[in-house]
């Protein structure tokens, strides 16, 4: 499957997890695509950690406002239900559990729901920005990523080897191959992508997956 198709498939499946009225923070990159695939009748409030609620679509270039960007620094608009605040309030919203769902990418996720997505030792460091607060604070943490690394190695592992972003906070993993729920006792495979087999998912995963073949959904 082409790169773009994979991304769209993931974004579409993540979108199904969002409910009308949810307050949602979408990480930079692929997670931002999710906003394009909301179910009919579902309207969400997008939180931007640089200080506002109600992110609207990207404006035409000539209408871009220098003071209105998303957390990736890209020009956006603000919706009519929107409001602005300082960084302390922005993270009070995050840390205080007022964000229903956050969708983030990952380098590694493990069986305990540990997440590593901010640092690779030996590689140039970027900093955690708001990621650690988001993962600790939001009510539901969805990891949206390609199932494997480009070299084919597993990103879903028994135990993260990279420096953690947060411990035991991930709730759901959605990849181009599978939907995996993180429970206290391990990872539960609940759905597989159309055109994928359970065997392929298991082979591509570096951690134990619990599942019942009879109850597997297809997305």
């Amino acid at each position: 499957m082409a790169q773009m198709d994979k991304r769209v498939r993931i974004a579409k499946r993540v979108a199904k997890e969002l409910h009308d009225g949810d307050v949602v923070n979408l990480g930079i990159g692929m997670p931002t695509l999710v906003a394009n695939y909301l179910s009919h009748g579902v309207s969400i409030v997008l939180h931007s950690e640089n200080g506002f609620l109600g992110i609207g679509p990207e404006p035409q270039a000539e209408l871009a406002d220098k003071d209105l960007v998303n957390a990736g620094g890209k020009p956006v608009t603000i919706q009519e239900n929107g409001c602005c605040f300082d960084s302390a309030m922005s993270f009070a919203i995050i840390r205080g559990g007022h964000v229903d769902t956050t969708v983030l990418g990952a380098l590694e996720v493990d069986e305990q729901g540990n997440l590593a997505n901010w640092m690779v030792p030996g590689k140039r460091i970027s900093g955690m920005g708001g990621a650690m607060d988001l993962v600790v604070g939001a009510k539901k943490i969805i990891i949206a990523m390609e199932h494997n690394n480009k070299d084919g190695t597993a990103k879903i592992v028994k135990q993260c080897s990279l420096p953690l972003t947060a411990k035991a906070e991930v709730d759901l993993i959605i990849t181009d191959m599978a939907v995996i729920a993180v429970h206290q006792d391990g990872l539960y495979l609940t759905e597989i992508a159309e055109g994928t087999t359970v065997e392929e998912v298991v082979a591509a995963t570096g951690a134990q997956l619990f599942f019942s073949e009879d109850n597997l959904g297809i997305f």
Partner: protein
Amino acid sequence: MVKICTANEAVKDISEGMCIMIGGFLGVGTPEGLVQALVDKGTKNLTVITNDSAFPGVGVGKLQDSKQMSTLYTSYIGGHPESGRCMEEGDLKIILTPQGTLAEQIRAGGSGLGGILTPTGVGTVVEEGKTQIVVADKTYLLEEPLKADVALLKAYKADCHGNLIYRFSARNFNPLMAMAARTVIVEVEEIVEAGAIEPDNVITPGIFVDLLVKGR
């Protein structure tokens, strides 16, 4: 009445070794004129507290370009490759802090708090060297307050008493830093007469502001 001056006049008392807070998020809400004046002045060995090192040639990134910083408290340096290189090579001490923690540390500094307990960073490298405190069966890190000698801030409008309002996402760290520095210098797009900003709409009270600079 708050004092109004030029950017160069405003930064004239900033000297080597001082700690400076600078508002902004990837350059949005950063006082470009004040940062440029500090670059022109060339003061070295600065400790800077700011959300990110922005980009080369933009906002706080200019102080990275000109190597005027010796210590940087920040949450993100991914926009300026030189920050990462300097960190690796030890040319610049960078204390990476989760963005929400950085915001609370600055707020605590300005609010007379001795610190705050946050769950963010527990179980990660962020916890190293910090006191852990358990409250109601949950583990938190004790994060200490941050204060500065000078804050360089950007607001949208000020009235002549220094009361400030901001625009959209250009607010970010500016109101927090306004409370946490001994001297607060604010670049604004417009200075309006007293009473032109409704008391209920003021975001930063004028009592925090020492100097106003008219920018763009």
